């Protein structure tokens, strides 16, 4: 029997509810994405916002003074305070109480800097050029700008201060947020990362080559793969414990860059293995066949054909794992990234700190100005990471091959 559509539309009508649900459903699924992007935006916004503040600053006199190598910190403080007119009694009392001492340091801005560029340690006392009298958030400061300006005392100025500036990048950390800098942490990161990669790259790429080119199956292959999978799932802080027990204590390396590099290197191996294996697997089998057919040994096939072909992918993988490692704080905290390292590292046995650890320490200080410094530090770290990701992206696009 012939039925035309016009005569029985009900046979093919769609359920209006279900269509609506479908559409709503699809849109609802994207809510998490919107939330995540929102969170990122808030995070970035808050960080940038926090890294600016409105301050009342006062010019202060006091040039820097150098003290000879050999004097203890306490001795220098003592002499300095005496020179400024305090009595022996007052000086002795202040220096004995840790809180007092810290307050003194902040108030009098006695800074102990150990600068390696100038040779052996010298204690340098600097008088800051500007003393922060009051600090306001951007919104409040701008809102009350005129009022604050009217209330300025003799010698004071109202400034809009970005905490992320050139000197922040090159200075050493200090007890005062005004002169805190991330330079030392950047150097520390550079040192630790390079040495860590020195370990992670050969082991990671070597393991990848072994698993993809020499031992594609078999007992050893399975043992290595299971082991790698488990290692990848171990929390990074456990690597820190390993580093603490083995490198710092057992090997006696102490809280040094070397211990950190060893720990971080081990942490980075699984990622490099995974990315390198992908890169090797992407090389088509026909290339290997062609090389074998020309009479190449396996070593020659791997190192003259496969690895060169997989190189861009492997380099990208290394860059990505470096980016991951830069952000690691937990394991390095355990291995001794120190709380206060006011000098630039000068070798693998040196004490050090790294960027994420420095940020952590600033954040956990609970002094509001240090949270600004932390914000500035975060911006620096995000900039470093963006640089690395852009490099990886560039590499991936430049060397996109059609085999």
């Amino acid at each position, binding site marked *: 029997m012939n039925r035309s559509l016009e005569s029985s539309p009900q046979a093919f009508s769609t359920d209006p509810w279900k269509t609506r649900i479908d559409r709503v459903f699809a849109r609802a699924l994207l809510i998490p994405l919107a939330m995540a992007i929102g969170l990122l935006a808030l995070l970035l916004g808050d960080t940038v916002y926090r890294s600016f503040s409105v301050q009342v600053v006062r010019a202060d006199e006091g040039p820097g003074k150098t003290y000879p190598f050999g004097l203890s910190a306490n001795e220098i403080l003592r002499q300095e305070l005496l020179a400024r007119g305090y009595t022996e009694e007052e000086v002795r009392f202040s220096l004995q109480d840790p809180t007092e001492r810290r307050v003194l340091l902040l108030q009098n801005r006695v800074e102990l800097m150990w600068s390696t560029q100038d040779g052996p340690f010298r204690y340098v006392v600097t008088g800051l050029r500007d003393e922060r009298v009051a600090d306001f958030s951007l919104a409040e400061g701008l809102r009350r700008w005129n009022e604050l300006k009217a209330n300025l005392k003799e010698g004071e100025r109202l400034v809009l201060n970005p905490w992320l500036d050139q000197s922040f990048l090159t200075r050493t950390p200090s007890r005062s947020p005004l002169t805190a800098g991330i330079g030392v942490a950047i150097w520390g990161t550079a040192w630790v990362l390079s040495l860590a990669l020195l370990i992670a790259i050969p082991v990671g790429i070597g393991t990848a080559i072994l698993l993809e080119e020499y031992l594609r199956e078999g007992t050893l292959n399975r043992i290595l793969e299971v082991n790698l999978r488990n290692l990848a799932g171990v929390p990074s802080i456990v690597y820190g*414990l390993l580093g603490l027990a083995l490198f710092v204590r057992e090997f006696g390396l102490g809280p040094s860059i070397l211990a950190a590099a060893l720990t971080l290197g081990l942490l980075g191996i699984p990622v490099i293995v995974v990315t390198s294996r992908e890169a090797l697997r992407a090389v088509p089998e026909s290339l290997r066949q062609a090389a074998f057919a020309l009479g190449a040994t396996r070593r020659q096939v791997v190192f003259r054909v496969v690895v060169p072909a997989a190189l861009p992918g492997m380099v990208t993988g290394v860059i990505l794992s470096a980016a991951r490692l830069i*952000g690691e704080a937990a394991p390095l905290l355990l291995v001794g990234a120190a709380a206060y390292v006011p000098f630039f590292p000068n070798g693998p046995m040196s004490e050090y700190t790294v960027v994420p650890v420095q940020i952590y320490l600033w954040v956990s200080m609970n002094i509001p100005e240090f*949270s600004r410094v932390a914000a500035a530090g975060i911006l620096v770290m995000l900039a470093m990471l963006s640089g690395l990701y852009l490099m990886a992206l560039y590499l991936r696009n430049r060397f996109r091959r059609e085999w």
Partner: protein
Amino acid sequence: MEILKQRPSRNPKEVLTFILLVSLSSVTLLTTLGVILSLVGDVVQFFRRVPLLEFLLAPEWTPLFAEPRYGIAPLIAGTFLVTAIALLVAIPLGLSLAIYLAEYASGNARARIKGTLELFEGIPTVVFGYFALLFVTPLLQRVIPDLNIFNPLSAGLVMGFAIIPYISNVAADAMESVPRSIREAAYALGARPYEVALRVVFPAAISGIIAAIILATSRAIGETMIVAIAAGQRPTLTLDPRETIATMTSYIVQAATGDQPTGSTAYYALFAVGFTLFLLTLFLNILAQWVVERYRERYE
């Protein structure tokens, strides 16, 4: 023939290369060995001084008191609290994204969403911790007056977001690997996309989805910086998300950055907690793998 008498494969370079590669790979095996040995040694020391029962059952973790107590329950409670909150956030959000990626997203959209998720994965957890403490907590304090400045709620919420990529990637992979034929059969029966997604693909991929959740849990448990910054470092046995607590990881950080003299019980306690953490995450990882393998056949 002359040439056939050569033996290039026996060239010492070949053997040496192979040996070199094996040696390099053995570092990975040594790492595992190192992890276990370094933990076990000090854990044994710990349990020489602290009875196992106290460790497991005592309700207080106070290593620095004059009369120290070493019950791990508060740390486990803290970890559990933060992780639970994180999963409450991450599971619905992560799975929604996974369903979208697997069933609805076109090629372009998929690439962009995955790119955003990769971005998320790349943000160091210190940054999330900073955000939790300095942005989320003050915000929440306006709504919840009793909220401590260090609390598991903020940390858990932010951690939840940080974990979303791990759930959505694995779950999306699991759903994408459900064979086309199953989907097409459902469509042919007149099902709409959302019905296919929820009633056919999701159940078919359930083993992978569960594995994703287990793995995300393992990650949440092992997460350190967010909790160290925002959740607190005061071991408290409570399930109230407004109180300051400590997790296993935040305790380890706290203990390690305050100088413990090497031989002290407090020092070994560090490793006892670390070992517990290690065992826990190891168990979860193995569980996830087992789930995937055991239930995979059903839907092939």
